[in-house]
């Protein structure tokens, strides 16, 4: 019974009003928009074979685009539109979260609605259509009084399919900044919190089934001409929509939104910052599981207020720099470049999450290897492993050039397995991540990069433009700056991967604060 008495169930439940409310809000809006577009379109093309075929074909193609990709595509599209709108009309809008999620999901809902509406209308007995004409109905009267009511059961089946699809796919809107039941799933997968994953899946499934059954009730009511059933189904849907207003009401206007990317360290750090902000009297909420490119734009646009990024990541991805500078120079230049976008680089947390060459401590000591410079002599007899992208990254080229490294073999590996492979001696050297907790767990050592071939990846706290002058906010986060050393972060990351009650980001963040706050 330990599985059911796990404290994380309670923690998951505490998030439910926010996640579920947002999930319903985005799903219902997307479905309503999808219906508002699909129904008139289906009616307009029903008797025209050419546009009908084109429309159904287009909707089918949309359906073949994976949900995650479709959602992700809408973000840059809207970002560009928002920039255009700001330039031309002086009115910008947020390309983050709700809007791209609603648009992508609405597009996703169209196929079943279009297909079933066209099929349903086409299935109306021609004799009945002629009778409608014969008794003196106009084409519109025939459509609304005869054809649509008779096609309704088939149309409802399509609407039910669309509803289930939209509710399921809405879980994928988390990475573009829309809070949903997917927050459980994304957070759970990243922090090995299977309770969260299970909870998120169950909640989404129950919601989909509930909406499906409510729509089925309405459908049965229409078919059997039972007003009671239509009413009951309608009230159920209305109650769901009303529930979506809860998070809006609950969110106080002064709330600080802390962002987090998609890996465990980020969840822990965002939880830590949120805890500090609450301790300072702010109301704070987290927006987790954001894509790496989404999160920076979201901060620049003010959709989130604060998050932790890494200097080397911004250097390469945001400013497209391939040159490598010493740590302080790079930070200083980054700071001025960010300031041009009114983004505040508040400071460094005190650790780096960079690529690094890693090997077992005992072996390194035995061979007398302290830094990468010592490695060159042994490389010819050693094997090396790295993640799927490392060997094509500029860091690797720089390393080879600076130290003249040439290994006997090079292998690509799933990051989770690399450390164990190095510990067991299956490979001699791996390109690991400096803040990974497994380095401590397997008693590995990070080799010193004395020639600074690898750019610095200092963890830095960034503030949104609108929070630049918020002294209370700065003061609340100041105790974290320079305080999180690499050993503490590794220990925290190891705990976060623990897979038990003490491994939730909140619990690990409290532990980390205990550890660093008391110094």
């Amino acid at each position, binding site marked *: 019974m330990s599985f059911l008495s796990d404290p994380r169930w309670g923690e998951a439940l505490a998030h439910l009003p926010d996640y579920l409310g947002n999930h319903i809000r985005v799903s219902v809006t997307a479905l309503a928009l999808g219906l508002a577009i699909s129904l008139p379109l289906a009616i307009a093309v029903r008797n025209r074979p050419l546009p009908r075929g084109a429309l159904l074909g287009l909707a089918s193609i949309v359906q073949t685009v994976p949900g995650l990709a479709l959602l992700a595509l809408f973000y840059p599209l809207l970002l560009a539109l928002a920039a255009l709108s700001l330039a031309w009309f002086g009115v910008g809008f947020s390309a983050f979260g709700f809007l791209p999620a609603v648009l992508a999901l609405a597009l996703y809902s169209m196929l079943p609605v279009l297909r079933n509406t066209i099929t349903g209308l086409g299935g109306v007995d021609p*004799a*009945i259509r*002629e*009778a*409608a*004409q*014969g*008794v*003196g*109905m*106009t084409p519109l*009267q025939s459509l609304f009084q*005869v054809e649509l*009511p*008779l096609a309704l059961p088939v149309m409802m089946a399509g609407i039910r399919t669309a509803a289930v699809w939209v509710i399921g796919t809405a879980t994928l809107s988390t990475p573009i900044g829309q809070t949903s039941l997917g927050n459980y799933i994304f957070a759970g997968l990243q922090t090995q919190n299977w309770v969260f994953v299970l909870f998120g899946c169950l909640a989404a499934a129950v919601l989909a089934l509930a909406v499906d059954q409510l729509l089925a009730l309405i459908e049965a009511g229409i078919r059997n*001409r039972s007003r009671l059933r239509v009413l009951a189904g309608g009230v159920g849907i209305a109650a769901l929509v009303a529930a979506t207003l809860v998070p809006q009401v609950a969110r106080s206007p002064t709330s600080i939104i802390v962002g987090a990317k998609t890996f465990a360290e980020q969840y822990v750090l965002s939880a830590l910052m949120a805890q500090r902000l609450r301790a300072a009297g702010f109301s704070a909420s987290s927006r987790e599981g954001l894509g790496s490119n989404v999160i920076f734009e979201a901060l620049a646009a003010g959709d989130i207020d604060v998050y932790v990024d890494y200097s080397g990541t911004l250097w390469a991805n945001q400013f497209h720099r391939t040159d490598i500078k010493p740590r302080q120079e790079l930070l200083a230049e980054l700071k001025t470049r960010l300031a041009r976008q009114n983004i505040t680089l508040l400071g460094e947390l005190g650790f780096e999450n960079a690529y690094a060459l890693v090997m077992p401590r005992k072996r390194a000591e035995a061979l007398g290897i302290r830094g990468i410079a010592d490695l060159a002599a042994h490389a010819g007899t050693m094997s090396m492993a790295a993640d799927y992208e490392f060997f094509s990254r500029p860091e690797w080229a720089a390393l080879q050039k600076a130290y003249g490294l040439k290994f006997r073999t090079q292998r690509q590996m799933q990051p989770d397995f690399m450390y164990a492979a190095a510990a067991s001696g299956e490979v001699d050297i791996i390109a690991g991540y400096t803040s990974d907790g497994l380095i401590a767990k397997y008693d590995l050592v990070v080799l010193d990069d004395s020639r600074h071939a690898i750019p610095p990846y200092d963890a830095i706290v960034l503030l949104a433009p609108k929070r630049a002058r918020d002294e209370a906010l700065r003061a609340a986060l100041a105790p974290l700056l320079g305080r999180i050393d690499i050993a503490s972060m590794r220990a925290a990351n190891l705990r976060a991967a623990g897979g038990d009650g003490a491994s939730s980001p909140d619990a690990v963040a409290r532990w980390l604060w205990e550890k660093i706050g008391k110094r």
Partner: protein
Amino acid sequence: MQRSSLIAFAHVGKSFDGGRGAQPVRAVDDVSLEVAEGEFLAIVGGSGSGKTTLLRLANRLIDADHGTITVEGEDVRSVDPIQLRRRIGYVFQSGGLFPHFSVAGNIGITPKLIGTPQNEIAARVDELLDLVRLDRTLYRDRFPHELSGGQRQRVGVARALAAKPRIVLMDEPFGALDPLTRDALGDDYRELHRKLGLTTVMITHDMTEAILLADRIAVMRGGRLLAQGTPAQLSDSGDAYVGELLRTPRRQAERLNELLPRDGAA
């Protein structure tokens, strides 16, 4: 001597696309036919004879290619087809009732479209149910699928009469019914036709039915009008096909005379 004609077809033609490179089909070919006020005309012909097309041309469910059709003295091309259909009753093959409307909803549809007040429609529906001999309290709120074929067709007739038309068009109205129901319904309709002073055009493939119900019969074949007149006039027609059509009822009558005792006390 001649009563004014309420419906008149003059050299009317209508062709349909034969589909995929085939020759267009001449469904109605140069037909001229007049229906006098108060007359009951039956149009008889086999399938593909063009009889149903001719009927649909009268209330502009389809439009003619050639010729002129006048209804109540007006060229139908100059009238709004919706308004035209609302003032002509139309009885469809096997009812054509709206399955999602109750009996009352079906009967009251045309008055409702015209904008008749709800209470007047309700009264009219009850009156029509009486007229077609259906118990008002028992049938008013039923749905078409709860009715027998004969009852459905009675509702179909009531619906056609709801907006008090002068003209009723009927497309094989009794074709799908069992002989007893058919006989009863035919007689009942004939009585309504007389009592309400209607002008009726009925399509049928059954010459016996046509002879028993109609004042005058028009025979069509291959889109052309072969003959028209009273049953007596038709039997004088020299046309081979008309003769063939008349042979069946004649033979039936002879057989029945042979088989049934004259003064039929059972």
